[in-house]
């Protein structure tokens, strides 16, 4: 197994902190091996904390692998599972975002992301848009989520001068602009997108087609919603399909923070700063000017029209 060392962000600022350091744990889960993946998460969470991260983000389904098929039910966790407890305990020094299959009390299985901090599950997002086309077959095995919610991330190691508002979108969720719009409207400073994006589409230059698409989407959302976007994709191969990595942070002006990761396992650290967010929103105050009243009125009208 490849040893992942955190790549340090730039030197910390002095004085009251408006910044956080985010580690992107771009790793390759072992397909269907919950035990090995939990152990790997604990190692990487610990390494991220030691490297100075306030938050470590893992890819989609980082605890199970992606093309699970019948392994979905066998690798599912519940919020009271010992694995969740162990990972939450590890989040006392650094917040952690992990991906798993989550089983509900009525035995639906969700592609879920847990935001862990201070020994607890602080937020839970269930993937809403389950791709079931092309090479994807998620709705065959999974139940969809039904909400996009923002929350205040503790990030206690950074002791931020005001809470960071955060929203989570899982992979395909990001391909629906309404998801990002709803989070922006809920006031997020940061959209976290854990992903298991298969690499495909050669012959369109030196980058895969999927990598080009995510580059456009992450930079566009960051710029239009003047928010940070943290995108953590996985790497490795499952049943012949490669995952292209390219994990990145985009700032609220739509620029990459540092370089995107490559196609191998890595854990780069990036600095995100509320001061940069403030400057972006002064320069481009689209959120201030957004006419939610018009959106609401038009949606109501369209809704009536659809019913007719």
């Amino acid at each position, binding site marked *: 197994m490849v040893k992942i060392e955190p790549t340090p962000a730039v030197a910390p600022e002095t004085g009251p902190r408006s910044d956080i350091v985010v580690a992107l744990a771009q790793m390759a889960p072992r397909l269907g091996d919950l035990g090995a993946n939990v152990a790997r998460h604990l190692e990487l969470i610990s390494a991220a904390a030691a490297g100075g991260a306030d938050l470590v983000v893992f890819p989609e389904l980082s605890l199970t692998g992606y093309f699970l098929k019948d392994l979905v039910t066998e690798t599912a966790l519940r919020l009271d599972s010992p694995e969740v407890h162990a990972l939450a305990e590890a989040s006392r020094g650094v917040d952690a975002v992990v991906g798993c299959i989550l089983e509900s009390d009525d035995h639906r299985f969700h592609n879920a992301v847990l935001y862990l901090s201070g020994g607890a599950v602080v937020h839970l997002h269930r993937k809403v848009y389950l791709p079931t086309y092309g*090479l994807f077959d998620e709705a065959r095995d999974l139940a969809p989520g039904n909400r996009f919610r923002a929350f205040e991330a503790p990030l206690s190691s950074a002791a931020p001068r005001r809470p960071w508002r955060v929203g989570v979108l899982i992979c395909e969720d990001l391909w629906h602009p309404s998801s990002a719009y709803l989070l922006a409207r809920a006031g997020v400073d940061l959209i976290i997108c854990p992903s298991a994006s298969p690499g495909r589409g050669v012959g369109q230059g030196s980058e895969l087609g999927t990598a080009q698409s995510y580059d456009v989407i992450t930079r566009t959302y960051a710029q239009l919603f003047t928010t940070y976007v943290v995108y953590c994709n996985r790497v490795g191969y499952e049943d012949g399909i490669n995952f292209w990595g390219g994990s990145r942070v985009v700032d609220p002006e739509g620029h990459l923070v540092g370089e995107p990761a490559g196609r191998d396992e890595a854990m780069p650290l990036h600095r995100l700063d509320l001061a940069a967010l403030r400057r972006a929103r002064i320069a481009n105050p689209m959120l201030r000017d957004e006419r939610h009243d018009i959106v609401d009125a038009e949606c109501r009208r369209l809704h009536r029209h659809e019913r007719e």
Partner: protein
Amino acid sequence: MSVSETAAGLSAAAPGGALAVDCDLVTEILTGFVREEVRKVGFERGVVGLSGGVDSALTLAVVCRALGPENAVPVIMPYRASSPASERDARLVAAQLGTVPLVVDISPQIDAYFDREPDADRNRRGNKMARERMSILYDLSLARAGLVIGTSNKTELLLGYGTIHGDMAHALNPLGDLYKTQIFALARHLGLPAAVIEKAPSADLWEGQSDEDELGFEYAVVDQLLHQMIDERRTRAELHGLGYDDAFVKQIHRRVRDSQYKRRPPLIAKVSNRTIDRDFRYPRDWGR
């Protein structure tokens, strides 16, 4: 009707409880399967490797019902070390079903190969024989204009107890969803020779080989466990509750998991937007 009533209604020779099947119904489905899937691709005949064992005997019986004995091409392929009883039983089955078997001795080509590989162990030799037989069946497939009909059952497919690209290679597999216990029940129901049904199952790849000795458990036992594990999706804890030994469950689970590659086509490295068998996914019966 409850499960117990169903089981009680079957003959004493049929497997009890969960593995009980209605033999007439299953025979009808298998017969229709072979008839339809052979004819829709433009063939009339079926080529079956006949070993003298119960799986290939039942397969040939189904092919005869589906296509008529005149369109069944049984092929007996002994090696010089094969048990003489195997060829005798194979001939008995072929005759009872009104077919004329081809007999191809594979000793010359097997020996020619292993003369250069004198240190090969019996697994290598056994696999090579299985693939030699496959190669012959596919040659006869073209020569006799018949599809190769496989004889693998669900038990051996799940346990990975077969040679990839050997006996696991064929065009159609009528018995692949039936456990060995169910194969025995169908064979009895169709009146196949007692000699074939009553002898210990063997791949006959070397002298004295026995499936149950080699596997380390009895079909009757493992079939019940596989049924609970695979068809009923019981968890480890539930299987423990049913009285299964944890180590045995783990052993069988590992066999199924570790042989998954044998049941899947080779992996294709995805680079394009439309990859064969991944997002290029027409049915095999495309246009048929």
